[in-house]
């Protein structure tokens, strides 16, 4: 359970959505444009109430679709405003073309995103298919295990986005975190405001004294240079993410990095995953450790930019590991997080036995038994009793 760390902090009971809306109120952006969608509806609903009650001076733009929400957010950001939005799943998918434009124009937009399955079949529950599909869109992606992380990530994301000049999304797992009431430590408004600071854009379209063209056509001669800049911006964002995390720790006391290592120092078998399943995994690890099994976890927080070399280093000593993906790539091979992890290992000259599991699609339960089973198989693979699967495996799905 979350304990108070910050001397002026306050322990409250809040859902993931409530705490993300609270963070947005404290950040107090100039413009929020959003359209409601389950399970992220509450974020903008609560925030719009803050606006209506005069508790935040933000210009709230109620639009008619998520495509417009993202467009209005981009326009506000281009004009020089600190702009935010929130969405989930199909709404996120409807923003698609605008996501790439926000990144290409290097706009520091922050989005509160709740991970939910994509249609069809229609499903409102949590999996990470939506944002995983946008992993190459040029957005920084920060995933949260619980409400505390969602709150802290939102506060940090504003600074990260503005320093990196990259749009940033902070996500929670749909319903599991978005609707689950948890104990969260919140910080005083003035301290959050002081931490995020005032937004001073270098260039803004409303600054008529320094006119410029934005979004011009660039063909064979210039497009590539700007896309290289974007990719380089993402590479440079790694240091910014760590710097902001350090600043956050100095101010509020909580420690964040690219990922959290749980009992990895002497781990022989490890799971790599993202989001709320990490909590379940930690519980299983504690049980296995009592039995003398050296199990560990890497919980990825920052998926874009991907901390490849760091993960490779931290996995280098394990005998076998599994990556648990809460989305499937439908590529005929493996799921996204596994592909990133194994390419990181390969680039670092490491060949470690590994497996890839897809779990929890459409909110399907993942229990402690499922995770214990993965560790049990990893143990056998580590001992050389069985060979790792050459294809993606699935947890808790009725295949035959």
């Amino acid at each position, binding site marked *: 359970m979350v304990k108070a760390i910050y001397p002026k902090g306050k322990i409250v009971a809040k859902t993931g959505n409530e705490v993300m809306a609270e963070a947005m109120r404290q950040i107090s952006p100039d413009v929020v444009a959003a359209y409601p969608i389950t399970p992220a509806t509450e974020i903008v609903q609560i925030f719009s109430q803050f606006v209506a009650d005069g508790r935040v001076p933000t210009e709230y733009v109620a639009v008619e679709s998520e495509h417009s929400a993202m467009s209005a957010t981009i326009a506000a950001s281009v004009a020089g405003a600190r702009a935010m939005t929130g969405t989930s799943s199909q709404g996120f998918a409807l923003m698609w073309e605008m996501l790439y434009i926000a990144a290409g124009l*290097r706009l520091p937009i922050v989005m509160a995103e709740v991970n939910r399955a994509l249609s069809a079949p229609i499903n409102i529950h949590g999996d990470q298919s939506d944002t995983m599909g946008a992993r190459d869109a040029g957005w920084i992606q920060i995933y949260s295990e619980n409400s505390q992380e969602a709150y802290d990530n939102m506060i940090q994301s504003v600074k990260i986005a503005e320093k990196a*000049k990259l749009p940033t999304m902070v996500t929670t797992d749909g319903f599991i975190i978005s609707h689950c009431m948890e104990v969260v430590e919140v910080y005083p408004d003035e301290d959050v405001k002081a931490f995020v600071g005032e937004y001073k854009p270098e260039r803004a379209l409303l600054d008529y004294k320094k006119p*410029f*063209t934005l979004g011009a056509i660039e063909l064979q001669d*210039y497009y590539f*240079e*700007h896309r290289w*800049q974007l990719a380089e911006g993402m590479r440079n964002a790694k240091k910014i993410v760590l710097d902001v995390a350090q600043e956050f720790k100095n101010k509020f006391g909580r420690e964040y990095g690219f990922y959290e290592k749980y009992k990895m120092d002497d781990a022989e078998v490890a799971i790599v995953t993202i989001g709320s399943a990490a909590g379940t995994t930690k519980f299983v690890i504690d049980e296995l450790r009592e039995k003398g099994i050296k199990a560990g976890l890497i919980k990825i927080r920052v998926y874009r930019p991907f901390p490849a070399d760091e993960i490779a280093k931290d996995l280098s000593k394990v005998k076998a590991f599994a990556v648990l993906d809460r989305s499937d790539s439908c590529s005929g091979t493996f799921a996204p997080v596994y592909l990133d992890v194994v390419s990181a290992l390969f680039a670092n000259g490491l060949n470690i036995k590994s497996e890839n599991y897809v779990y929890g699609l459409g909110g399907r339960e993942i229990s402690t038994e499922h995770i214990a089973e993965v560790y049990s198989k990893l143990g056998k693979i580590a001992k050389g009793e069985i060979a790792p699967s050459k294809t993606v495996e699935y947890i808790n799905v009725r295949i035959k």
Partner: protein
Amino acid sequence: MKKEEKKLTAAELPAGGILEGGTAQDFKTGSWRSMRPVWNKDKCIHCLSCWIYCPDSAIKIAPDPKKTTVVTGIDYDFCKGCGICSKECPVKVQAITMEVEKK
């Protein structure tokens, strides 16, 4: 021979596809032309119709002590040879005629 245009590197370009104002001045578009307008200084009555109608800014003008503004020539760096100036030049005057561009 056409001079090679100096292209900016990723390090030189402002981030995010920003282009500074007025960059069109550095992009000489006159080479697109297949027809060339020829301006006859003696026939011109400086009505400025050609200047008004030019879709680019290829009609050169200057202040003049006697009249407010006079035409001084055609900017072949940017004229694409559309012929609108020649068409709009008053029928009685015909100070601008179109000729085939010699490459």
